[in-house]
């Protein structure tokens, strides 16, 4: 493990400038303060339990896609980062921190597939998050994702959407959708509604058609729903992935407090993975809630329920054969794989499974904040997911033409895989198909 994995020419101003500002004294103090103040028994148990067997390696898409290079095995990433910090009691160089930040932020999607293959169930994603936390405290984070964390901090949403632009976008999509369904409303600030619908920043910023489609589904299904008119509407949380737990907590609190202010019974969220993790696992716990203070229902559960209850009828099933990607935060993290299959089978004539699937599915290599680290790492991301391309080619050979990816980051990451490896699949959200095949009023 002495030599670097490859000659690395990646230039990232966030890492370069951050590392230039460091002193060895500051590094030592910061590492030890995080280890002492924030980790405790969990990290110690993981470090002491690992027997270096390497069984986690075969679980990792980076390792498999990079010709079994041990630097890309989960345990290899631990060895190059947190173990060195522990072993040297925080006495590491600025150059080491720069490399550790790059490994933790761009060579691990925190997908937790490896935790299932570890005989002790060690959660390596947790250890990578500790590395990210240390790098955040030292100000050495990739530039693009840091910009997103800054946006969360300033605006409480991830894409610098300003106060007036949000309700304006909702009213615009309401108006466009009224051309299709004249009675359609996007009810803003409706106190006591059953459902608050929340989305992630890219939807109002660029993909407003997703808000349009959601409004059609809510209206046809007869849901008593609302959306907030001010901040608190964005359920996403990239600060969770930069290690900025303070901002993560503020963003989560704003989201839950908005639901509480509107006195809704539950929050329904769109097709996003990391935002789901941030509300059911990470952000809520940081704030001291073991479970979310307001029930949060993922889009997959919501579609499942409205289809099962017959609130939405399918007029004609989607004919093109589909295959279904299982996002880590929704499936491995939260077990919604049978629900997503129910929804898919209700909507589509033919579902062709990719293998492995469900909780064993290969990651998109975009999640965990990796795609958010931006263009400097795109090639690495694609080269590190050849196994996904192979898995999808096999599904395509069985006839799949459409790939359903019910998560924003999976969606974008798989687009890149699709394009680079020439898969020729069409990638859709569940909602795209539901909107297309559902019965709508004439």
């Amino acid at each position, binding site marked *: 493990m002495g030599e670097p994995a490859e000659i690395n020419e990646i*230039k990232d101003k966030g890492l370069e400038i951050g590392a230039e500002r460091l002193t060895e004294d500051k590094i030592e103090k910061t590492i030890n303060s995080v280890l002492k103040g924030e980790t405790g028994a969990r990290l110690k148990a993981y470090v002491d339990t690992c027997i270096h067997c390497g069984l986690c390696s075969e679980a990792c898409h980076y390792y498999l896609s990079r010709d079994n290079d041990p630097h890309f095995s989960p345990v290899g990433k631990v060895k190059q980062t947190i173990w060195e910090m522990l072993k040297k009691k925080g006495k590491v160089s600025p150059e080491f921190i720069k490399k550790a930040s790059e490994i933790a932020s761009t060579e691990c999607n925190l997908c937790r597939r490896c935790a299932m293959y570890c005989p002790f169930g060690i959660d390596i994603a947790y250890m990578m998050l500790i590395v990210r936390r240390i790098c955040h405290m030292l100000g050495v984070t990739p530039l*693009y*994702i840091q*910009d*997103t964390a800054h*946006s969360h901090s300033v605006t409480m949403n*991830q*894409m*610098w*959407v300003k106060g007036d*632009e949000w309700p*304006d*976008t909702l009213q*615009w*999509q309401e108006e*466009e959708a009224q051309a299709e369904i004249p009675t359609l409303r996007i009810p803003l600030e409706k106190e006591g509604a059953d459902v608050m619908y929340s989305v*992630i*920043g*890219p939807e*109002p*910023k*660029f*993909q*407003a*058609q997703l808000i*349009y489609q959601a409004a059609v589904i809510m209206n046809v299904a007869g849901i008593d729903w609302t959306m907030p008119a001010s901040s608190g509407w964005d359920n*996403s949380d*990239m600060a969770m992935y930069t290690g900025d737990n303070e901002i993560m907590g503020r963003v989560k609190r704003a989201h839950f407090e908005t639901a509480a202010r509107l006195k809704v019974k539950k929050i329904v969220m769109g097709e*996003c993975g*990391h935002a789901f993790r941030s509300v059911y696992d990470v952000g809520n716990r940081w704030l001291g809630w073991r479970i979310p203070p307001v029930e949060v229902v993922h889009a997959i559960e919501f579609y499942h329920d409205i289809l099962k209850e017959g609130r939405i009828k399918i007029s004609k099933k989607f004919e093109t054969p589909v295959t279904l990607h299982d996002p880590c935060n929704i499936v491995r993290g939260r077990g919604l794989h049978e629900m997503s299959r129910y929804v898919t089978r209700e909507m589509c004539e033919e579902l062709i499974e990719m293998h492995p699937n469900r909780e064993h599915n290969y990651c998109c290599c975009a999640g965990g904040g990796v*795609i*958010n680290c*931006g*263009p*400097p*790492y*795109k*090639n690495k991301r694609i080269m590190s997911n050849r196994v996904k391309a192979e898995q999808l080619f096999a599904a395509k050979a069985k006839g799949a033409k459409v790939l359903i990816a019910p998560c*924003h*980051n999976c969606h*974008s990451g798989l687009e890149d895989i699709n394009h680079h490896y020439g898969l020729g699949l069409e990638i859709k959200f569940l909602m795209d198909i539901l909107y297309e095949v559902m019965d709508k009023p004439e």
Partner: protein
Amino acid sequence: MPKVEYEGQTFNVDEDGFIDDFNNWNKDWVRHVKQVEGIEELTEEHWKVIEVLQDYYKKNGIAPMVRILSKVTGFKLKYIYELFPSGPGKGACKMAGLPKPTGCV
């Protein structure tokens, strides 16, 4: 940094194919992106979107919301996606010489 060549001109790009610097943008870049994005014909409407994006970017340092793009150009959302099939944040920003937007995109 990767380079692309178009009709004898060389542009520096990032790994997503966005131009390295807004100031290096020119009309040949637009024709290069047209090819990459598989857009059949450049119309006045494409140029209008480019102009609005650049104008907003010069004033604000980021890409506008698609709502603002729609308001200023008068184009509906669907039409913007017809002009730029990979969307306003990817194809249109790339063509206008803006950096890749940050966030889950």
